[in-house]
């Protein structure tokens, strides 16, 4: 079992507040980990540490054994991370096809000066079309994002992230804001992607869907690791139940 | 003694900058617009101050009239120029504001002539001797005094009155404020009124110090005011005031020592760029 991600002893402080405290997390190849925890648990902060948007005061992040703690975001992406963000941000002036095609063009955009000499986009368009079909958006590839519903834009985020051929796909609350039916549908897609071999770390609030599709759960509360393991075991852990006081979705 | 003189000069200049930059930062804090045209209101205040003083002989009346008229002019500017552009991308209101400013300067030139106006009988022309060989003009004392009074009044207004609370709430979270029944529109009008009238006061004072008001007198202060609010950290009132005073003093000393290299007016921008390289969010700006 190859270890894809290792978060080791990460601590993040903002001013006087400790957002993440001494967190350890390991993700192996092919796993689908549900990352849950009450509001304010520090989930997004940890996600930002993994992607490099936030620097930890303490601790390290390893991707396939390589220390990426000091690398810039775009370097981590090139090393194999991909992120679908909570607040969808499609590139508004381009069609969905172009949105994904840009992500597919990693080889062509890597060297800025070389990118000037390349005009052929056909292979990226083909790949993009395939990816958009995979996420169920084949009928709207030519549309601009502005006219499309949230559910579609969430899928676009996923397609764009997949285009980067990531070793680890980070999904930050993809089901937020969706209706029950849309959420179930998107959750199914995530499960299918994992079944096809994609390693996924899924931050989510929607416990119903998380319980349904994630075999393994990682729970964080108040910035500290609370539990990690098989879904049923974690949800029956009294500490976890206490942290979720009052929540009864399981 | 030279140092003290430079310091006080810098303080006087800084007070003027503070009065001007305040309006700019008030608008930015509320609407995220760089209100370049603000400097036109400064110039307008200067013109009104001179015209009313020459017509009525009363400087005090001129100051009051200038502040009131320009306050309303500022509100009008918001209504006609900025409100329709609120939904557009930020560069639109920036360019529109610049266009407005240039147009205003031209209108002043056409209406009042390119050579400017002066006081017929300039008020407050005396000076007092603080210590040997060091004089402080009455006008300079007025600048410092009036600035302190106006800024304190503003601080009192924002901290201790319901209007002030409503205003601060709107700046922090407009939706929340709206939910509590605050009339956002009125807050915006008040915002522009206060900022513009302070700029008018600055205009009247500068016209007094130089005994001249001319169409382009707003240019340099406008650009510097922009540098000041960025320096202070966009949206931070405290930052703006500190930056304004700091700049006034810096220019005062800087002109003597590096003025031959850059010219006085470029010092503001040199300082700004240096600071931004070290602290991209400005001196007191929040996290980007």
């Amino acid at each position, binding site marked *: 079992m190859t270890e894809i991600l290792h978060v080791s002893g990460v601590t993040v402080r903002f001013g006087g507040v400790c957002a993440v405290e001494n967190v350890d997390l390991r993700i192996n190849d092919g796993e689908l980990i549900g990352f849950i925890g009450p509001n304010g648990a520090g989930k997004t902060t940890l996600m930002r540490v993994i992607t490099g948007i936030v620097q930890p005061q303490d601790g390290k992040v390893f991707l396939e054994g390589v220390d990426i703690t000091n690398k810039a975001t*775009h370097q981590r992406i090139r090393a194999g991370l991909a992120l679908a963000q909570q607040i969808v941000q499609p590139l508004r002036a381009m069609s969905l096809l172009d949105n994904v095609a840009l992500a597919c063009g990693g080889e062509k955009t890597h060297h*800025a000066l070389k990118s000037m000499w390349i005009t052929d986009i056909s292979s990226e368009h083909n790949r993009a079309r395939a990816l958009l079909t995979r996420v169920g958006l084949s009928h709207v590839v030519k549309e601009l994002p502005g006219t499309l519903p949230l559910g579609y834009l969430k899928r676009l985020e996923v397609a764009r992230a997949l285009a980067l051929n990531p070793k680890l796909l980070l999904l930050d609350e993809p089901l937020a804001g969706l209706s029950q039916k849309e959420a179930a549908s998107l959750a199914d897609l995530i499960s299918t992607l994992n079944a096809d071999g994609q390693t996924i770390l899924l931050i989510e609030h929607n416990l119903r869907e998380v319980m349904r599709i994630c075999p393994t759960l990682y729970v964080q509360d108040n910035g500290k690791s609370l539990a990690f393991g098989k879904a049923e075991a974690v949800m029956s852990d009294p500490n976890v139940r206490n942290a979720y006081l009052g929540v009864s979705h399981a | 003694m030279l140092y003290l003189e430079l310091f006080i000069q810098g303080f006087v200049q800084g007070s003027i900058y503070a009065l001007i930059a305040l309006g700019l930062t008030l608008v930015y804090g509320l609407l995220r617009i*760089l209100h370049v045209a603000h400097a036109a209101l400064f110039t307008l205040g200067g013109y009104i101050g001179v015209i009313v003083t020459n017509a009525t002989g009363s400087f005090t009346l001129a100051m009051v009239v200038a502040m009131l008229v320009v306050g309303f002019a500022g509100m009008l500017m918001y209504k006609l120029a900025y409100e329709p552009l609120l939904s557009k991308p930020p560069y639109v209101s920036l*360019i529109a504001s610049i266009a407005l400013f240039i147009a205003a300067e*031209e209108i002043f030139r056409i209406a009042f002539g390119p050579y400017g106006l002066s006081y017929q009988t300039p008020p407050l022309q005396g000076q007092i001797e603080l210590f040997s060989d060091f004089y402080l003009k009455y006008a300079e004392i007025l600048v410092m005094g009036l600035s302190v009074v106006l800024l304190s009044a503003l601080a009192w207004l924002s901290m201790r009155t319901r209007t002030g609370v409503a205003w601060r709430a709107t700046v922090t979270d407009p939706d929340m404020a709206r939910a509590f029944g605050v009339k956002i529109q009125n807050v915006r009008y008040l915002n522009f009124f206060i900022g513009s009238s302070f700029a008018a006061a600055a205009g009247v004072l500068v016209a007094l110090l130089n005994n001249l008001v001319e169409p382009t007198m707003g240019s340099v202060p406008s650009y510097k005011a922009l540098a000041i609010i960025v320096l202070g950290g966009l949206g931070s009132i405290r930052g703006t005031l500190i930056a304004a005073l700091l700049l006034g003093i810096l220019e005062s000393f800087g002109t003597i020592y590096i003025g031959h290299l850059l010219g006085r007016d470029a010092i503001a921008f040199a300082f700004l760029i240096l600071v931004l390289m070290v602290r991209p969010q400005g001196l007191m700006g929040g996290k980007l």
Partner: protein
Amino acid sequence: MSYEITLLTTMAISVLFALSLNFITGFCGQISLGHAAFLGAGAYTSAMLSKAGVPFLMTIPAAALCAAVLGAITGLASLRVRHDFLAITTMGVGFLFVGIIRQQDFFGGEIGIAGIPGSGFGKVRFMLICVALAFTFAAFSLYVRRSWMGFVFKSIADNEDVTRVLGIDVSRYKLIAFIIGTGTAGVAGALYAHHFRFIGPDSFGFVESISVLAMVIVGGIGSVWGVIFAAALLSVLPMLVQFIDDYKLLFYSALLFSMMRFSPDGIAGLCTRLSSSISRRTTESDGNKR
């Protein structure tokens, strides 16, 4: 004929200058309120070399280099700041340039540099050189827009953070945009110096920066054809219509303001909207005819 040639030359130089800003602001979304500084850098470099005896054509790469170096520094500075801060920083660069030039006798101080020699090519051939350079850069701009570099620029202009999350080194692309845009402005500066034969610090101040920005915006940010049209028109309008010349600034600012109020995407935007509403109406009426 001579008058028309002068007009064409002025137009060509303005088009080149405006397209160079379009590269930075239009393509890559980095607003610059100090672009005239780079025109000035090129102009002063070329003028001083020319007066020292260097042949005109050889001053052009020197001008481009000088402007590009300044542009690279500005670009590096711009990487640290965003949006509004960027606008004011670039404005500051412009003021710094003028401030420094004005103070140094080496650059001619307040008075500037007069008696710049002609290009040595005669009026007609000089005009053709200017037109050729403008044309070349226009073609280059159109090409880049179709290339992957243009694709990335468009993405950066749209949403910088997302572009980064796609694994793209945004900083490097921005820097390249700045260097190309400012270097080209430097070339325009060399042409400017040899066209007007006199330059001073006031030729490259804030008003000049706003004028060229106006050309880009009125044309339509990012639209090569729009910017060409707007630059050509606005540069010669004061020469053609005396009334406009007298009230030049008022006219420009009124035009700019109206544009922002009613069509912020410029003439290009107007045209796009006009053509799509026409095609909509023709398809509707076709539908009705059946």
